């Protein structure tokens, strides 16, 4: 009877039980499903952002130009460097995704030493990103951005002023350039980047746990580095979300 049944199963289509579909373990499958769900959370925030932002098109107080506001760079005070710092942040995060790929790849080769090395770089990248975000928030708050108020309304005079400065010029706002602008611009900045930052923070915590386990040889004993792959999926997702946040919030 046993022979008969196994013969049947070779003919069975449609995922006849076992490790299917895609030959994924259930753990990785769960991570994928969770990420799909999390993508919807971020989508809801970004859709809310889009709806509010478009409600300001044609309004008397226009949505501020992000490049006019995020033009600071550490130790370069007084220079007009629009979006340079946030580009650096994006670069750091993407770089940390690259090191994560290298860690996963090293995991496939069961190379404990390399996994721990690249996990360390990834953690470093995550921490650097969080540090940058802290600086960015500080700068934003210093410039009078609050959850319930926004001093980033740019007047016509301000826009005229902006047109004359070029990348790298000395720059400071004249009195009368700025006024009270759309409040949601500031609140959304905190919510959207904050929610993403929270994800990065969770990712760093997860990465640290996995890194410690790697160093202690847990996965070497287990014979595979699947946990590294799972946090890798999460990390790439967080990275991808940032690309969207960057595009929608800063670039457009």
């Amino acid at each position, binding site marked *: *009877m046993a022979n*008969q*049944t196994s013969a*049947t*199963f070779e*003919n*069975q*289509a*449609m*995922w*006849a*039980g*076992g*490790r*299917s*579909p895609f030959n*994924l*373990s*259930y*753990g990785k*499958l*769960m991570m994928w*499903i*969770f990420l*799909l*769900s*999390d993508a*919807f*959370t*971020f*989508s*809801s*925030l970004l*859709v*809310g952002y889009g*709806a*509010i932002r478009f*409600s*300001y098109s044609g309004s008397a107080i226009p949505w501020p130009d992000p490049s006019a506001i995020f033009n600071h760079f550490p130790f370069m005070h007084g220079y007009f460097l629009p979006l340079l710092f946030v580009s650096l942040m994006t670069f750091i995060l993407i770089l940390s995704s690259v090191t994560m790929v290298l860690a996963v790849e090293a995991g496939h080769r069961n190379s404990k030493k390399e996994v721990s090395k690249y996990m360390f770089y990834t953690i470093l990248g995550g921490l650097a990103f969080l540090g940058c975000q802290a600086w960015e928030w500080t700068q934003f708050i210093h410039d009078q951005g609050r*959850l*319930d108020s926004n001093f980033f309304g740019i007047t016509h005079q301000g826009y005229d002023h902006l047109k004359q400065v070029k990348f790298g010029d000395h720059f400071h706002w004249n009195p009368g350039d700025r006024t009270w602008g*759309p*409040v*949601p611009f500031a*609140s*959304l900045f905190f*919510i959207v980047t904050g*929610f993403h930052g929270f994800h990065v923070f969770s990712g760093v915590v997860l990465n640290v746990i996995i890194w410690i386990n790697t160093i202690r040889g847990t996965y070497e004993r287990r014979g595979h580095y699947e946990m590294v792959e799972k946090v890798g999926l999460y990390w790439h997702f967080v990275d991808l979300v940032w690309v969207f946040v960057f595009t929608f919030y800063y670039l457009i």
Partner: protein
Amino acid sequence: MSTAAAHGAHADAHEHHHESFIRKYIFSTDHKMISRQFLITGIVMGVIGMMMSILFRLQLAWPDQKFAILEFFLGRWAKGGVLDANFYMALVTIHGTIMVFYVLTAGLSGTFSNLLIPLQCGARDMASPFLNMLSYWFFFLSSVVLCWSFFVETGPASAGWTVYPPLSALEKAMPGSGFGMTLWLVAIALFIVSALLGGVNYISTVLNMRTKGMSMNRLPLTIWAFFFTAILGLLSFPVLLGAALFLIFDRSFGTSFYLSDIWLNGVGALENVGGSPILYQHLFWFLGHPEVYIILMPALGITSEVIATNARKPIFGYTAMVISLMGISVLSFIVWGHHMFITGMNPFLGSVFMFLTLVIAVPSAVKVFNYLTTLWRGNIRFTPAMLFAIGLVSFFISGGLTGIYLGNAALDINLHDSYFVVAHFHLVMGSAAIFGMFSGIYHWFPKMFGRLMNNTLGYFHFWLTFIAAYLVFFPMHFMGLAGVPRRYYAFSVLPEFNVWLEVNQLITVAAIMAGFAQVLFLWNFFYSIYRGKKSGPNPWNSNTLEWSTPVEHIHGNWPGEIPTVYRGPYEYSREDREEDFYPQHIPGDDEGHGHGAPKTKTAPVHTEEAPAATGGNVLFSALKKVLGFSPR
């Protein structure tokens, strides 16, 4: 045969390790225990929600009557025995919240997904038993937080179960917008975590943990329903999380996502600018509409299983049933706008939503007709479970028909927020889903507790509830058509609505009758857990895998190897079998056949081959395949 041998051979292989009380009954990771935890919590919440409904029904029927007993129980919420108006709002809000989320989402889907997914797929447990346990405890915590809101000074949330801003966003809008509203949001956030943990588990278990031979097209329809339900929950609850996040910031941190300029007598009263309450409605209903199907689909799945088993016939159109579930799932994400026809939506957009909404009638009708055709000429056993399943079909029809009215934007503008809407959704997702839940409880009680429930009490329970539910909700259609608005505390100051007072009294009497019927159920349920007649391993002569496990619950479900599956789950009344059922795990000479109508031994081998592949023939045979017809 092989399983019987396996039972004997491997019985000693299972280690009977001792478990502490806490590990076994409280922080259990066993899906069967977690399912019972969900069920009991759901029943407790259901009783709370039902008692609330009786309280506000009393108010609606006898608005000026003083019930001294109410003051005794409710204190200052019913001074002098008359229900406080603010508390009335809190009651309808929390009644809705409890019934929608705690009873019919967690209580229904949490119970039966947990019980049946591993058992019917042939898995030892969920993919991650630990996350499963967390899922229950987040749900429990959420229930506690929600109930806690009854004990805060300003009372629980009172903005309706949809908690629209600005009532929910401004803390001082009404008493119920205060701390009670904050607790509501916390409770829902915890609930979402629970739903996500559960959903991730259900999906991966169905996809990855099926036993040998259990291909997707051999899954019982219950599992298909739970599977799609989990997908819906997983994709829609996060959007509610985003909506709640915005709302929490609006309430507590001074943002204005949902608040625009609020003017009082031409003077700007609040500093909030820039947001829009409509944004909340969009985000909320993006969850809210799939949520309707999160509630309904498990009930439909249970009904498919119960009807096929008790009609002793294969379910009619298995593939059509699966495809209609899939169709409902997809459509449910793109129809949320029909809750918002009166928000000033662009009429073109409104007609798109209207069209998509009406399209849902198609898969729903496919399901109804398949239920009816499964019953048709069946050898029906009217067990209480079967009666409740048929009751679901009844409610699904009578409530679904009014959905076609409400889906029409032109009609909905008149009927919006009237009792017509109340009648519609209480029939189609309230009564129908709760009947599905009862059906499941009666049917799988022997699996959950090893004993049978009392049939006579079950019949009384069914008929009383069935009649009472129609008496409660049917007259509401006429009230709604006459323009009676929902959520009003009393109509005594609106003389034109006072003509409905006697109807309201009838409804209230029927609601109390329904309440008493549930007492019968509760007695039957709890008595049978301890004293019910002992059940055999397969009391309903059912085909599915869960009945191949021993009556006593053990870790890992099957003492020996997990049985192998040889055929679809609905092989009832086959002509080549002496018994009228053919369990999935019994080997036979028909291996390789999928679902569908039984095939006799004498049938020629190539009956289904098309004579000539003309276009019409191909289309017709494809249609036959889709609809699940096959020659009997």
